[in-house]
């Protein structure tokens, strides 16, 4: 497979060596061998708690290493804490380890927030996807990355994407060097899946153009799409001045 078959996980390493993990899908298994032995802290920014974005957590060994301070950040809920919601997966019978047994783990409930991790300035905001779902903007030393892996911006309204005030995700993406954005469907598929929480390649392109983004990395490929399908979807896009990079397992970008 050229594009890969794992679910969402993105590693970000700062100029000062700070580690961020964006989501904890099955792709996290490929990150584990890269974790430096001497690392003292890892921060995992979850966009939401759908299984494809957290299923790698239970197999991420640094979580069980008492010498590594691990922070999980994720969307607040009006009803139940992030800890209690994560407990539904990270507990028997679905998983043999209890969250409460992970002594060096700290969990942070966030919504529209700004915070600092190492040299990173991070902005989180809720975006259009079923259930509380976050997008992130990560900035360091004048460089910027936005991460909106599950996003249906077309639900913003009939004027999408031309009215930035009324477009989900716009502020997170505005002027970033790179955006990693949902690009799951073709136009024909989306017509049958309005409200499912995902975008077409064209939606992602239009939004990136409107937001003045430098590079769009297409993400969250549909599991039923073959590599050839994805090639065709991307070939059909007239990217214009926008650089469009197909997201694929192992892709490395330097900002």
């Amino acid at each position: 497979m050229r594009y890969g078959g794992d679910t969402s996980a993105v590693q970000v390493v700062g100029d000062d060596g700070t580690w961020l993990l964006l989501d904890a899908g099955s792709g996290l298994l490929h990150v584990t061998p890269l974790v430096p032995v001497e690392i003292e802290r890892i921060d995992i920014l979850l966009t939401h708690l759908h299984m494809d974005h957290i299923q790698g957590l239970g197999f991420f060994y640094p979580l069980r290493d008492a010498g590594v301070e691990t922070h999980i950040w994720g969307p607040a809920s009006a009803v139940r804490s992030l800890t209690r919601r994560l407990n539904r997966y990270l507990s028997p019978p679905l998983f043999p380890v209890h969250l409460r047994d992970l002594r060096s783990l700290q969990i942070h409930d966030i919504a529209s927030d700004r915070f600092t991790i190492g040299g990173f300035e991070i902005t989180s905001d809720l975006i259009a996807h079923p259930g509380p779902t976050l997008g992130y903007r990560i900035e360091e030393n004048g460089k910027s990355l936005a991460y909106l892996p599950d996003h249906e911006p077309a639900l913003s309204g009939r004027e999408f994407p031309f009215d930035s005030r009324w477009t989900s995700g716009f502020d997170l993406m505005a002027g970033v060097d790179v955006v990693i954005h949902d690009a799951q469907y073709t136009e024909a598929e989306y017509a049958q899946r309005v409200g499912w929480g995902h975008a077409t390649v064209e939606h992602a392109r239009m939004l990136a153009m409107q937001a003045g983004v430098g590079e769009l990395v297409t993400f969250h490929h549909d599991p039923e799409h073959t590599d050839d399908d994805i090639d065709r979807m991307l070939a059909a896009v007239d990217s214009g001045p926008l650089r469009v990079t197909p997201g694929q397992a192992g892709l490395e970008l330097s900002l």
Partner: protein
Amino acid sequence: MTQEPIEVILLRHWASYMAIPIWICGPDGTLVFYNEPAEGLLGRRFDEEGEINTAELADLFVTTDLDGTPIPAADLPIARALSEHHPTHRHLRIRNGEGREVAIEVSAFPIEGQGGRHLGAFAALWEMTTP
């Protein structure tokens, strides 16, 4: 201009498809969106004239109880939902700048977003056939 919160964006999208008049106010009481059925009550089109601030809104209507007693702006359902953070329902009569008078019932709800954010209020209006 800063992007609106996702809760308000989705609410506006929903309202744009509804056949009943819907108003959406921001936290400061500005009417940030009203749908096409609401345009008839207001006597103005959103696409042409945009949002309406509280002062302008107060000038647009004469609002009374069904018996004709004037209702202060702060006692209107959407104002109370905004200030008191709980739903409000009321029957009332409005007359707009075009002289159109109608009896309506209004249900207003505060927009309480994730993370404890107070994002405004919205109201659904229903024209009464037997006031």
